[in-house]
């Protein structure tokens, strides 16, 4: 199954960046065993542009579509057998300690 892993910041005070594993090691390992297909960091939300078309007219606005304190700072595309494997990948990412991670499976019309 394919999962998109959203890597997010967290404003909760209980984060623990000191215990976080090394990101380079994480990328190298997950790439090597085929669990990570691709991924990257994102520029901050201030660099975002929101695009809509309404009534045939292009509407652009500066910034993300929703103002939230937790922001997506990166993403990884995972290929895992099931949710438990994806959880295992996510829990060893440094941002699981310093932020939060959301696992979203790709849409499956048969599920």
């Amino acid at each position, binding site marked *: 199954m394919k999962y998109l892993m959203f890597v997010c910041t967290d404003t909760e005070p209980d984060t623990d960046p000191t215990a976080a594993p090394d990101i380079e090691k994480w990328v190298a390992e997950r790439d090597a065993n085929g669990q990570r297909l691709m991924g990257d960091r994102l520029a901050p939300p201030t660099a975002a542009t929101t695009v809509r078309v309404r009534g045939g007219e292009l509407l652009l606005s500066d910034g993300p579509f929703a103002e939230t304190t937790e922001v997506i700072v990166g993403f990884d595309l995972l290929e895992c057998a099931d949710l*438990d494997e994806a959880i295992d990948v996510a829990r060893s990412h440094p941002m699981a300690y310093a932020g939060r991670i959301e696992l979203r499976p790709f849409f499956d019309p048969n599920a």
Partner: protein
Amino acid sequence: MSDASRALATASQESFGRIVAALIRVTGDWTLAEDCAQDALALAVERWPRDGVPANPGGWLMTVARNRAVDVLRRADVERRKLRELALLADQETVPPATGEEDVVDDRLRLIFTCCHPALALEARVALTLRTVCGVPTADIARAFLVTDSTMTRRLTRAKTKIAQAGVPYRVPTGRTLVERLPGVLAVLYLLFTRGYDADGEPAFADEAIRLARMVERLLPGQPEVSGLLALFVFQHSRRAARRDADGNLLTLDRQDRSRWDHAAVAEGLDVLSRAGQDGPYAVQAQIAACHATARSSAETDWTAIAGWYDRLVERQPTPVVRLNRAVAHGYAYGPAAGLALLSEARAGGALDGYPPALAVEAELTARRGDRTRAAHLFRAAAAMSDGPTERRALSSRADELAPGLA
């Protein structure tokens, strides 16, 4: 009850979860699995009274359910592999060899771990376990959760959809994951038991919780907390016939007729407890339950031992409710003043505000210290706050005993 309906009740209790679990393993389709198991039971209701009960009722139901699944899948034109595996499934059931049996039972353990997966909401885990593993009708679950049928149906559907979409595995975890997941499974069983054991709960849920705990203990040996939980259930359940008076009012432990306790169950509880150790929270709670279960009379209860177990439990589970129960135990072991002192510790920071049992405990300790009038007031306050009718009656009648004129 006729032979056919008795056989049907037994078979449906024993077979539903097994059939659903096996069909889910092969087809991966939860709704199909449940529908086919249900169809098989419906056909049995029609056939058995007329044609007689088959020699192997479980095998009969499995074969019917399997054939339904094959029909549906054939119509849906799915891969041949699933159909082939389905054919094998029924063969295992009709000739019931010991090995095939174990494979099928393992399916149910897998199913429990899937239903109790932490990626699902806690309430959904309990409901899904009841529906899928135990085969409890959705309407009964809805009633116990105080929601409408359609709300419960939606909740179950949402949980099953999440399982399919998110890729929740159908597997008994191993290693670190098993260590992490097992407490969650036990918490669901505990909630299930509590739902059955509550004053105005659904008694059948307690039986289901015990059946599941027995099964998990058998299939996952060497896990002390599973034995601890099962022992706890068995001890509590041993008092079921003595818990209420003739009018259905709840009786506290000291007022129960101990000859009506199920002494065979107590013996079984002690046996299970010997496998539970003394460390896990459930094992410690079971040790406490064992102290009560083996006391010949209320006066002979070993409160010093119980207070010691609560000291141990509060280290592992420092929750307000555990602190409250510890205050009760110390109150009996070392006098009401000691109990009241621990009670005010437990209440620190308003932790037990609005929780009727805390008031009831204060009332009981106050009564034992000799202030009957204040105790009666406290019992009445607890009754007014309580939302279960049976509980409320029990508290009011305690108040009446202490201060009859003071309504």
